[in-house]
């Protein structure tokens, strides 16, 4: 197990390096860079002074070097103008657009991103797992149909439209706050009970919006997988032992049916970050999504580069966790006679 972990971690790091290179290439795909665009913009508004200042930025961040050199400098594998000072050295870079270090920006939002996404995730699993299980056990009954119908409607409504509708009517009829993650007076305050409550009420709509379609999907897949397992002889054995229905389903077939979902854990991070970008944009959530979108649009490469790398890292970590969980969950994978995962 330890060797497995070690091996997986090493490959993960290697993959991360590959991904970081790809990320860097992709974000540099559009022509120009933030500063050169800024210069264009300033030229167009006749700000000659700014132009010089921006030109200095180009030097400072080595934006005039070849791409591969920029990459090496970025990750800290080659010396930049200020010596070795890149990701490896813990310098996450500079956000041109926000004119502050990336670390600061990310530090603020990453926590909130995690909160929103965890809430959505909990919603998904708290809703989807029980509903999917019930739907499978009581397949083709009215409860199955109702659960499906609700899920499908969530699935069929574009998220951001749902967000808009819920926000609008939620605010009007239920006094649910619109947008943001907390009431304005708590901005920047230390965490307290009131602030927490405020965050909770603000989380209602995003959670439901981000969660519904995902929940519907999980529910449907779970139902299908579980129905396969429910007829297996080992379920009959459990029945013969007199195991009560809930335990019987949860302990045996459900665990078996979870396999594909566990395999999917790695997908959660990117899904939740880039998948919820639009929702975050629409709903004005101070999460990484909108920052990413904005920085991509304005080619704020260090900002977007780091966020993307962060998400990639999370994804890879998620996959690692999912592999470990898979092994824990299914001894056949863990102990299989042949070599492999």
């Amino acid at each position, binding site marked *: 197990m330890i060797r497995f972990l070690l091996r997986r971690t090493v490959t993960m790091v290697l993959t991360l390096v590959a991904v970081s290179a790809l990320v860097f290439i992709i974000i540099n795909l559009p022509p120009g860079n933030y500063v050169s665009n800024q210069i264009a913009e300033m030229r167009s508004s006749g700000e000659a002074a700014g132009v010089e200042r921006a030109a200095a930025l180009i030097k400072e961040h080595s934006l005039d070097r070849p791409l591969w050199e920029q990459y090496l400098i970025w990750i800290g594998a080659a010396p930049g103008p200020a010596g070795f000072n890149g990701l490896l050295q813990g310098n996450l870079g500079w956000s041109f657009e926000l004119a502050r270090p990336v670390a600061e920006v990310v530090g603020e939002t990453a926590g909130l991103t995690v909160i929103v996404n965890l809430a959505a995730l909990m919603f998904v699993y708290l809703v989807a797992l029980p509903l999917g299980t019930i739907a499978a056990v009581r397949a083709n009954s009215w409860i199955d149909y109702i659960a499906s119908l609700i899920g499908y409607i969530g699935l069929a409504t574009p998220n951001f439209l749902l967000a808009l509708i819920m926000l609008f009517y939620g605010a009007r009829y239920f006094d649910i706050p619109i947008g943001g993650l907390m009431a304005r007076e708590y901005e920047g305050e230390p965490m307290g009970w009131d602030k927490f409550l405020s965050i909770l009420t603000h989380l209602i709509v995003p959670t439901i919006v981000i969660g519904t379609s995902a929940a519907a999907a999980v529910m449907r897949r779970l139902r299908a997988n579980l129905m396969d397992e429910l007829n297996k*002889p080992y379920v009959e054995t459990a029945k013969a*032992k*007199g195991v009560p229905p809930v335990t019987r389903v949860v302990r045996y077939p459900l665990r078996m049916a979870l396999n594909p979902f566990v395999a999917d854990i790695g997908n959660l991070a990117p899904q939740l970050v880039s998948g919820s970008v639009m929702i975050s944009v629409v709903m004005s959530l101070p999460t990484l999504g909108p920052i990413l979108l904005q920085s991509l649009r304005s080619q704020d490469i260090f900002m977007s580069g780091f966020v993307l790398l962060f998400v990639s890292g999370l994804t890879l970590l998620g996959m690692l966790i999912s592999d470990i969980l898979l092994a824990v969950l299914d001894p056949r994978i863990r102990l299989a006679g042949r070599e492999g995962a």
Partner: protein
Amino acid sequence: MRQTPLLKVEGLSICFGLPGASIEVVHDVSFELAPGRTLALVGESGSGKTLTGKAVMGLLPRGARVSAGRVLLQRPDGPVDLLRQSPAVMRQIRGAQVSMIFQEPMSAFSALHTVGSQISEVLRVHGMCDAAEARKRALDMLAEVGCPDAARAYAAYPFELSGGLRQRAMIAMAMIGAPRLVIADEPTTALDVTTQAVVLDLLRRVSRDHGLATVLITHDLGVVANMADEVVVLRRGMVVERGEASAVLTHPGHSYTKRLIDAAPRVPESIAVHAPPERDDILTVDGLSKTYPGRHRSFGRPASPVYALSDFSMRLERGRTVAVVGESGSGKSTVAKLILRAELPDPGATIRFNPRDGQPMDVTSLAGERLTEFRRKAQMVFQDPFAALSPRMSVQDILTEPLVIHGLGTRSERRERAAWLMARVGLSPDHLGRFPHAFSGGQRQRIAIARALALKPELLVLDEPTSALDVSVQAEVLELMGELEGELGLSYLFISHNLAVVAALADHVMVMRRGRVVEEGAPDCIFNDPRHPYTRALIAASPEPDMHRRLDLTAVACGAGEPNTWPEPFGYNGEAAPQLIEVAPGHRVRRAA
């Protein structure tokens, strides 16, 4: 002495399908069973034995319905009809009052949980004791059903155990809740006779001491003779004969029963010795070993590897049959898997396969075309037929698949061949469209055999091919094998627990124990002149369908003790086993020189 019956089945009929268009599978079956007694349910494969048992448990498969009858269980407050109880009440009864040993132990365990946790769950579910106590009792139970290393079995996952071990675990699971009624569906098919003896002994003891009533579903009339107080003979869903065991076995009234008893194989008094053939080995195996890496129980502690097989050598002559018998878990299936390259042996082994026409092959290093060729010529019948058949393929597809794989025949030819195969193994070709789960255990086993025969192989490895077959079908299958041996020059590696079958079929018998061959020779030598204490125990433990020759189970159980309890010169300690020594031409025994 007439006790109030514990279980009373009255006019039970079971049918499949919708009302109206339904088909009755079990028809008007009645019997009763008193505490402490054992009732044997025998009959042809597919006659509805398992269904009857499941009906008692209230576990009929989807689509099956009880169309008539009652199943009365005597409880302290009077008899209750198990068919009409609420799910909650049934839950209390199952596992605690009535339990069942399922026919196919592999599939009956969840692959995700350790065997031990699945066994002790019974106790926890019924709130009989706390977790620690449950674990202790499960370990005891495992030891009691004859698991050599109860702790290992407890912590193992089902797929890590040999078929016999799994079956014992299954039995342990059924018995641990101290039920008053056990429905044992072929509880010993995967067990070697000595273990079978242990298990049967256990069942008998519990019956006697605790008044356990047993419904024993079996094909083995030997077991019936040894165990049963009463016998019910089923045929095509109907009771054809019913009565005290002694009466039925000694004076069968129905022609079917008679036929059953006649067909039961016995170890013949004298075994015909085949003419010494010209040396033409189809298979030579040398120095075959298999070590499974052990599992880390916890971090840090190194795992001790499992020596599933040590230094196994054999020769199989073309057109002949080598039988491997031995204790469950002694590595028999491992031999089969290694020879067929289902797994790779430890380095240093040679397996040479010598097809009738073509180059000899070194099985361990085959690849590509040659491997495919080998795969066509050597076939295997798996021990657990249910697990070995794709659940989502119809029988038709299963039977034609080998032909498709090797590109043999046209579509219609393949279909014809499938139909022919079905008929040959005693199944109706009309059932080709069904899926495996819709067959009874024995029927599935026959499908597995039919599939192995589809390619007309030269070498057939059969892992317990007849364990789930009723004797008449078994006879048919054995007959078929004999015919093929002659017709096609088929060679068999035959793995079995049933010494009678082995005696009838084999040209050479190898007796295995703990991963090693302890004795080998012609059946004549082995059965009539066994040298090794383990071989002797085996033979003594083989039950015979004769009420008057019941086994002395306790004695048998002792004979098959640990290697270090064996008398000189056979005994040894640990891994330091002595060599095989030729005691007579072709008869070799593992003993100190």
